[in-house]
């Protein structure tokens, strides 16, 4: 193809080799030749509207935009000719006549493209004596501050919404000089990627609301890091001032997050400064929490654990959060084993452990490759909310024509075309069995199953595609028949020659699995709670929010003799049930590593000073190990631990073997079935305390119970009613919302939100009462 042909062009007298058809601005960028621009952005479509990038091309009488010009062999380009300089000066003057030039009070100051380009290409006197344009503001929500008078109409934000976020929320209304960028009516941006417009906006029109007037760009120190929420492991820049985290920006990495960041990854840093941060070791004495010195608290923890271990080591259970670092998890495991117990687990939201425990739950392929698949079957995944940037990759694939199909217990609002098969939780198993049957896989479950055209179509699609992928998401992993779903997925994958994988839930789920934070022959996360232990070691776990069955978790932990919680936050459940709380440093305050969904090890350093007396988790556990007289705890840095782990476990995870579908179907209920999803802004301890994210409509709406109109009608309930959700012994009062996305026979009841701590398994039978 001619596109591939190498050609030569000349820019400012310098010959440049390039591919035919490339954009001139990309060619000059690569060659380090500076062409100013505002509307052009590599990741967005071409607008060619700001007219800042005009260049002179031989034989073309007028200056033309480099951002919209494809190079041709022999093209002779000038970027500094009198014609170009005049054009740049003209555009710069036009851009500034109506700009408020309020740089001293603008948050963009110091990192403003307009400011920078004006320095280089503008003029220092203004000839504009007319009244400047002033644009009225609309509030667009708690995350993004607007000052539209500063807007230069580059439309990057509008194109982002349309092309990347897949939600057209912003637009340019009005005409000519009256054209205004915004939402037209007051309307919160709802995209889970909305914060990216802050980076895209070249001026101070769209800035971070949580960061508003907090610091100037030049006062900030930048540290690279890894986002601690989903399993993408987005690369971030943590900006600190005097040791305090001030904001988070994306750090570009084309293989992982490209240049994007989900709002959760961008704004959750606010949770670092939560009032619930634990800043001092605490010991419960006679039911009262009392401050203690580190020595005292660690001694108490060590002697308590030793005591239990000395009688029956199996009475010790360790639960680790999959958002903890590899190093922390590794030391927690070492301590547990050192004490003689093999009860350790990170799979806190899993209920069904009948399957293959040793399988590493990872994607089975690279994140980038997801955008090149031509077909996907997602099982139990609210992909857009759980893994915003994986959803973005799938969206890209879908835009290129890939067929995305989903089997879920609720209908999703997706930003790409997809075929969605929605049913109650038990129906998911049936649907998957039917697809397996249609695909030609056989199994005892597939025998008496009714296979519809829809099932056949899904199977056909997977078979037809060259690169199909089957992925199990959060909702599958919390499903009471996860084992069966896995087995059926493996069956379908085999029959259709699709690849199969798991979308790991948290930032370090894969890491925890890789280094073996699972019981060898001990108790798993569920049985450790079902069969209460005498002593628990909790690493970053909030029992009422982080577990599949918080009621069970709370009762098990309350009845224990000793609960040592290494935690960044003092949560209600811990205050209720723990014996010792050891303050662990929080987001940005520690070094460590995560292994992301594609099995990539990513290490980061501490960026901020630990709050109060808190200490990095690995240091706390190291001292605890020493106090327990265990061997192998003489690390002097987290890097040492990492290197040791890398040597032992550093190979890429093996392709997941999901095991066979065995056991009985457990998800069928006779009454109403709970769909217990963990909402995007309730996923972990940090984001739950990020105040601005909690103010979003997304977070506020996620505290309600949801049923479809017919379930509501049957129960005599209407939208806005206050209801009690009754699950076993548990009872939670919530507002009811009517939502056609929820299937018949089901109630969507969020997990991990305030009020849900008294409820049971994320899936299971429940009833509704009007209150």
């Amino acid at each position, binding site marked *: 193809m001619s596109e591939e042909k190498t050609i030569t062009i000349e820019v400012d007298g310098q010959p440049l080799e390039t591919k035919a058809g490339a954009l001139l601005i990309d060619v000059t960028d690569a060659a380090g030749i500076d062409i100013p621009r505002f509307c052009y952005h590599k990741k967005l479509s071409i607008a060619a509207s700001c007219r800042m990038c005009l260049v002179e091309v031989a034989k073309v009488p007028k200056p033309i935009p480099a951002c919209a010009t494809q190079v041709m062999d022999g093209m002779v380009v000038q970027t500094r000719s009198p014609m170009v300089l005049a054009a740049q000066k003209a555009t710069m003057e036009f851009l500034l006549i109506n700009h408020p030039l309020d740089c001293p009070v603008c948050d963009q100051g110091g990192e403003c493209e307009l400011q920078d380009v004006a320095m280089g290409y503008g003029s220092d006197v203004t000839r504009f004596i007319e009244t400047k344009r002033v644009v009225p503001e609309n509030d667009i929500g708690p995350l993004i501050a607007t000052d539209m008078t500063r807007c230069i109409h580059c439309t990057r934000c509008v194109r982002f919404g349309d092309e990347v976020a897949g939600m057209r929320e912003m637009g340019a209304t009005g005409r000519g000089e009256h054209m205004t960028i915004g939402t037209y009516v007051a309307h919160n941006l709802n995209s889970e990627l909305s914060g990216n417009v802050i980076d895209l906006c070249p001026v101070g029109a769209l800035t971070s609301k949580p960061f508003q007037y907090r610091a100037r760009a030049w006062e900030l120190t930048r540290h690279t890091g890894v986002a601690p929420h989903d399993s993408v492991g987005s690369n971030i820049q943590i900006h600190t001032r005097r040791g305090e985290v001030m904001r988070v920006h994306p750090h570009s990495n084309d293989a992982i997050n490209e240049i994007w960041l989900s709002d959760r990854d961008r704004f959750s840093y606010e949770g670092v400064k939560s009032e619930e941060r634990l800043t001092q070791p605490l010991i419960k004495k006679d039911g009262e929490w009392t401050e203690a010195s580190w020595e005292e608290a660690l001694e108490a923890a060590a002697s308590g654990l030793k005591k239990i271990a000395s009688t029956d080591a199996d009475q010790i259970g360790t639960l680790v959060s999959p958002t903890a670092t590899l190093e922390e998890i590794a030391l927690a495991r070492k301590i547990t084993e050192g004490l003689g117990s093999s009860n350790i687990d990170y799979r806190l939201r899993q209920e069904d452990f009948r399957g293959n425990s040793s399988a590493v739950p990872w994607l089975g392929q690279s994140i980038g490759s997801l955008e090149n698949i031509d077909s996907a079957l997602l099982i139990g995944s609210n992909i857009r909310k759980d893994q915003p940037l994986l959803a973005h990759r799938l969206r890209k694939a879908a835009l290129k024509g890939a067929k995305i199909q989903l089997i879920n217990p609720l209908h999703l609002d997706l930003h790409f075309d997809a075929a969605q098969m929605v049913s109650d939780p038990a129906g998911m198993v049936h649907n998957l069995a039917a697809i397996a049957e249609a695909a030609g896989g056989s199994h005892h479950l597939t025998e008496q199953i009714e296979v519809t055209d829809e099932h056949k179509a899904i199977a056909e699609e997977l078979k037809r595609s060259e690169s199909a992928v089957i992925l199990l998401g959060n909702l599958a992993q919390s499903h009471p028949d996860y084992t069966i779903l896995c087995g059926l997925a493996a069956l379908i994958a085999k029959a259709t020659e699709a690849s199969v994988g798991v979308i790991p839930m948290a930032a370090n789920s894969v890491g925890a699995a890789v280094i073996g934070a699972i019981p060898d022959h001990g108790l798993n996360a569920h049985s450790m709670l079902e069969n209460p232990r005498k002593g628990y070691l909790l690493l970053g776990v909030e029992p009422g929010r982080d577990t599949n069955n918080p009621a069970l978790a709370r009762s098990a932990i309350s009845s224990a003799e000793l609960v040592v919680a290494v935690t960044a936050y003092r949560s209600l459940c811990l205050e209720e049930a723990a014996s010792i709380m050891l303050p662990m440093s929080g987001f940005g305050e520690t070094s460590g590593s995560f292994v992301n969904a594609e099995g990539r090890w990513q290490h980061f350093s501490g960026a901020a000073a630990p709050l109060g007396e808190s200490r990095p988790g690995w240091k706390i556990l190291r001292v605890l190990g020493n106090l327990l007289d265990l061997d192998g705890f003489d690390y002097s840095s987290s890097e040492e631990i990492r290197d040791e782990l890398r040597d032992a476990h550093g190979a890429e995870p093996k392709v997941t073997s999901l095991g066979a579908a065995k056991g009985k179907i457990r998800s069928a209920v006779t009454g109403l079935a709970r769909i217990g999803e963990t909402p995007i802004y309730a996923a972990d301890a940090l984001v739950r305390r990020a105040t601005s994210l909690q103010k979003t409509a997304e977070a506020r709406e996620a505290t309600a119970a949801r049923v479809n109109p017919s379930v509501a009608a049957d129960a005599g309930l209407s939208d806005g009613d206050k209801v009690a959700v009754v699950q076993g012994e548990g009872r939670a009062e919530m507002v009811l919302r*009517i939502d056609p996305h929820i299937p018949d026979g089901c109630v969507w009841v969020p997990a991990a939100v305030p009020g849900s701590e008294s409820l049971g398994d994320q899936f299971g039978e429940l009833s509704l009462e009007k209150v």
Partner: protein
Amino acid sequence: MSALETKNRNELFTPEIRAEIDHEIAKYPEAESQSAAMAALRIVQDANGGWLTQERMDEVAAYLDLPPIAIYEVATFYSMYEHKPVGRNKLCVCTNISCMINNSDQIVEHLNNRLGIKFGEVTEDGRFSLKEVECLGACGGAPMMQVGRKYYENLTPERLDSILDELE
């Protein structure tokens, strides 16, 4: 989720309006129903006393399965869509060059005096509103104005009086 999103397409507008919009949609290739946005806004505006509200625009968006902002953009770009109440008779007076040099000023002044309103205003009885428009492509009949769908050309204050008398 707004109430609109859950609303059935067939609960929007009257059957007549839906039929009219559907007729417009049919003019365009399948999957290009956005093309009918302008016509849909016009039809809905006509049925709504000559102007659009946010609710009406949202309904058009829902009917055509478009994000509301796409409709706001269109409805605020074209000058024939109104976002404030207008009179039963919207007098659109051209003041562009050919009309201007043929004394459109005098026509405007006469209307200002007779109706007691300026451009952008509505008479108290709601019978008339006044709008300044750009060249309407009838310069040979300057000065001219458009009322509803009809052009009135070669205006003089006297002719204007008799035209206004005729308009309900």
